[in-house]
C-alpha cells in the first residue's frame, strides 16, 4: 500500500508518558535525598540551624527568580511553536538556555565562596565544626550539585531541541520533542522549589 509506506507512525501521548515516567524516577531520587536531609536535620537540629545561616538568602532568592523566569520562557516556547512562530520559539529556547547558564554562574560563585571559607566536604575546618555541620554541607554540596547537574543536562537537551527547531524537524504539527525537553526543564524547577526553602530559608 502506498499510504502505509509514506505514513510515519507517531504517538505523542506515549512519548510524553515515557517522559513523565522518567521524571517520576527523578522525583523519587530527590525525595530520597530530602528524607535523608530531614532525618539528619531532626537528629542534628542545632548544628543544621547554625550551618544554614551560612547560606546567602539574597543569592538563593535571585537564583530562584532566574530559574522561574527561564521555566516560563521554556513553557512559552510551546505556545510559540503551536502558533508556528519559529523565530520566537528559538528566542524563547535561547533565553531559557542563557538564564540556566546565569544560574550556574551564580552557583559557581556561591560554591566558590563556601570553598574559600573552608566549607567543602572533607575540609579540616568542617571536621573541627563537628558532625552536624559536616552532614549539612555534605548534603548541601551533593544536592545542589546534583540539581546543577540536572540543569546542565536540561541545557544539553534544550540545545538539541533548539537545533531541531532551527532545522524544522520540530515544527507546529510535530513538537513533542520540544514538549518533553520543556518538561525536563520544569522538573529542575520543581526540585529547586523544595531545595531553596529547605537549605536557605528554614534556619
Amino acid at each position: 500500500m502506498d499510504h502505509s509506506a509514506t505514513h510515519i507512525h507517531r504517538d505523542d501521548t506515549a512519548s510524553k508518558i515515557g517522559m513523565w515516567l522518567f521524571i517520576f524516577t527523578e522525583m523519587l531520587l530527590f525525595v530520597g535525598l530530602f528524607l535523608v536531609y530531614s532525618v539528619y536535620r531532626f537528629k542534628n537540629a542545632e548544628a543544621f540551624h547554625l550551618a544554614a545561616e551560612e547560606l546567602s538568602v539574597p543569592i538563593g532568592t535571585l537564583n530562584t527568580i532566574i530559574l522561574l523566569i527561564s521555566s516560563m520562557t521554556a513553557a512559552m516556547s510551546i505556545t510559540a511553536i503551536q502558533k508556528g512562530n519559529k523565530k520566537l520559539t528559538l528566542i524563547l529556547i535561547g533565553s531559557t538556555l542563557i538564564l540556566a547558564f546565569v544560574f550556574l554562574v551564580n552557583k559557581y560563585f556561591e560554591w566558590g565562596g563556601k570553598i574559600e571559607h573552608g566549607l567543602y566536604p572533607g575540609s579540616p575546618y568542617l571536621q573541627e565544626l563537628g558532625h552536624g555541620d559536616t552532614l549539612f554541607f555534605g548534603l548541601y554540596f551533593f544536592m545542589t550539585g546534583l540539581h546543577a547537574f540536572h540543569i546542565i543536562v536540561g541545557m544539553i537537551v534544550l540545545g538539541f531541541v533548539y537545533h531541531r527547531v532551527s532545522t524544522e524537524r520540530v515544527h507546529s504539527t510535530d513538537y513533542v520533542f520540544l514538549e518533553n525537553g520543556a518538561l525536563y526543564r520544569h522538573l529542575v524547577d520543581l526540585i529547586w522549589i523544595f531545595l531553596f526553602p529547605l537549605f536557605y530559608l528554614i534556619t
Partner: protein
Amino acid sequence: MEQEKHHIVPYKTYVIILLTLVVLTIISVAVTSIELGALTVTIALLLASVKSVLVLTYFMHLKFDQKIFAIMVIGIFAIIIIVILITFLDYYYR
C-alpha cells in the same frame, strides 16, 4: 485516525503564573525571616507545595493535556507522601 486537539495556552497565562510564583517566593523569604519556630517549616513547605502545584498545572501543562498525565502525577505524589509520612512516624516514635 483521531485528531488530537491541542489547547494553545496564551502567553499572558504564563506571565501571570510567573508573577504569582515570584510573589510566593518573596512571601516565603519574608515569612521565614521572622522567628516562628516550628511554624516556619510548615509555612515554607506549604508555600513550596503551592508553587509546585502551579508549575505542574500550568508550566507542565497538566491542566491542558489528557487526564492520564494528571492521574499519574497524583498517583506518584500519593506514593511520595506515604513514604515521607512512614519515615517520619518511624523516626518520631523511636
